[in-house]
């Protein structure tokens, strides 16, 4: 086969697949969001934005992302550096740390529910230690802070691994010569981390952050398991419009709003962590 056509032939199946199962449905959803019985209109958007829970769910989603993602970046960086320094058992630790990656988000939510529930592990433990006399209900509408904390913890536990994997791969790409040179000049470990690892890790950090932030705006199952209706988030409201209210137009509008937020943040991250031309390794 002509080597000039070959690459296009190779990506053809994926392109066709994406067009059929992503682009086409996306166009349909967009169409649904912008139309009512009377034709083109913004009524669907007006309806979902005017609903009294919309500002709350938007705020909750953003707050959660703001609390979880930076913490995860720090944690993933720390874990990746640690793994990289290990001489023995590196693979084993990496496997163990990435176990949560293989667990579905709903299952993760249920695991943490088993901990925080009124008859859950945390309550039994505190009861056994004599801290409390009888089980306390931690995840109730009276403790919104606790609900938030439980969801944030579950998210950190579940989704740090995806950043870790990307960062470990990124650190592996940094040539050893830089570190050797730095050592020769007597740079401290912190200096080596902040002056070599971090700057050269930019492309990986960019990828990891973009992926993670998009996932953070799509948070749904963990919240549903731990917060029920107490902690409305954008994705949960979308689900309610589609399946509880059978209002496809409003659900499509919500989906587009989430998409817009995701694109906005992706652009910000791409811009903030951009790699200058010709500076790649």
């Amino acid at each position, binding site marked *: 086969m002509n080597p000039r056509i070959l690459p296009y032939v190779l990506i053809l199946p994926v392109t066709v697949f994406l067009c059929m199962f992503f682009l086409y449905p996306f166009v349909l959803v967009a169409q649904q969001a912008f139309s009512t019985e009377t034709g083109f209109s913004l009524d669907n958007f007006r309806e979902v934005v005017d609903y*009294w*829970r919309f500002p709350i769910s938007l705020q909750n989603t953003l707050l959660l992302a703001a609390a979880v993602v930076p913490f995860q970046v720090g944690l993933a960086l720390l874990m990746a550096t640690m793994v990289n320094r290990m001489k023995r058992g590196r693979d084993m630790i990496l496997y163990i740390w990435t176990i949560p990656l293989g667990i579905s988000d709903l299952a993760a939510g249920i695991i943490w529910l088993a901990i925080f529930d*009124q*008859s859950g592990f945390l309550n039994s433990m505190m009861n056994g230690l004599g801290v409390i006399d*009888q089980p306390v*209900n931690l*995840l*109730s*509408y*009276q403790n919104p802070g606790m609900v938030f904390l439980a969801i944030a913890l579950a998210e950190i536990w579940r989704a740090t691994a995806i950043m870790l994997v990307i960062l470990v791969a990124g650190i592996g790409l940094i040539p050893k010569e830089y570190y050797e040179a730095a050592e020769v000049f007597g740079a401290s470990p912190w200096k080596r981390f902040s002056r070599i690892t971090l700057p050269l890790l930019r492309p990986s950090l960019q990828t990891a952050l973009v992926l993670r932030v998009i996932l953070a705006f799509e948070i749904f199952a963990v919240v*549903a398991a731990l917060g*029920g*209706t*107490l902690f409305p988030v954008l994705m949960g409201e979308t689900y309610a419009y*589609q*399946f*509880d*209210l*059978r*209002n496809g137009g409003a659900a499509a509008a919500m989906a587009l709003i989430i998409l817009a937020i995701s694109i906005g943040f992706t652009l910000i991250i791409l811009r903030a962590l951009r790699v200058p031309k010709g500076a790649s390794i």
Partner: protein
Amino acid sequence: MTLHSKLFGAASGLVVACTAFAAQADVLFWSTQAKPVEEAQAMRDQVLAGFADVVDYQPNDGGPWITRLEAELQAGEGSIGVLGALHGDFSAMNPDDLMDLDELGVSAASDTFNSLGMLGTDSVQYVPWMQASYIMAANVEALPYLPEGADINALSYDELIAWTANVHEAQGRPLFGFPAGPNGLAHRFFQGYLYPSYTDGVVRTFASDEAVGAWEAFRELWSHTNPASTNFNILQEQLLSGDAWIVFDHTSRLAQAFNDRPEDFVAFPAPAGPTGRGFMPVLAGVAIPRTAPDMEAAQALIAYMLEPETQLATLRATNFFPVVDVEFPDDLPPSVRAAGAAVATMSASPDANPGLLPAGLGARGGDFNRVFVDAFHRIVLANQDIRTVLDDQAETLAAIMEDTGAPCWAPDAPSEGACPVE
């Protein structure tokens, strides 16, 4: 072509032919009811095994249920033979998508149910299949705390509140259980129980002064309610675990408690308020989508579902009661006896004020429920001013009623045109 590939081709062709044949012989019963694994299996083994054809009983959540159905309707052809769902599910559909079932000649004993099955048209769109209601249940340990002089079979809301307060005080924790979780049926309590009992209406009286009184009473009840109720969906779990001693829920969502430990729990009617003892029946029906592959088999299956023996088998399988006249045998499970007695006492009580399921709302049924759930969230959980919230939610409610043009249903006084929010 090699011999191998020829053989393979022939074999796969045979497999395809076989599955196609098998798929055609089965009647697909696509249902939103009897979803729990044990109930679904009982439907297959005890109810549908007696039907002449093989029935493929597939229960599903409302979302996937409507999604597949709509896909088949849009495609103009499908494999679903018979639909089983709640009145609310059917009323959200376009009646043109359901076959008219007048010629089938089967119907329920209750004319009210039969007219609900017409979905506002002149012909039968779904045939009533089974019914249930909502009742109260209590752990026998709570009985000593009943307020003095109160009859558990004729409680008032004030007595219920006093009772839950007594239990709260004695046990040191609130033990009333309320299905306010994401999949709980709290909205039915407001629509069919609290509002009819306090305001003698649902829509007309939504924001009346009596309604303010109803919410004040409910707030008081809530102060003796386990705050984890916002995560309670099916109260039999909390009855069995001891997290709630006095509860309100759907009869089939309490059944397991009575069947597992019949000695430990009692069932009793819902309480009465100033305007009577409001209560609401639950109605499920069977229908045929216009895309059903084998109309005759589907019709035969519907006729079979309405036979008295099938109805009794359904009762044992799902804890939903028959809609036709049957003679009850003596060996019914404890849950059926307990719930049946409570429902009978409730409907026969002198102050009974039965309400009907919301009708004529079409696809806006979910929005209608949300008005009540939102009112609950704002008034009770967020502690907002009752009058403000009701006036606010009344606007949403009025818009839904005007949009759908749904006339009033009992206990609201009949209306000409859309039911007004007064």
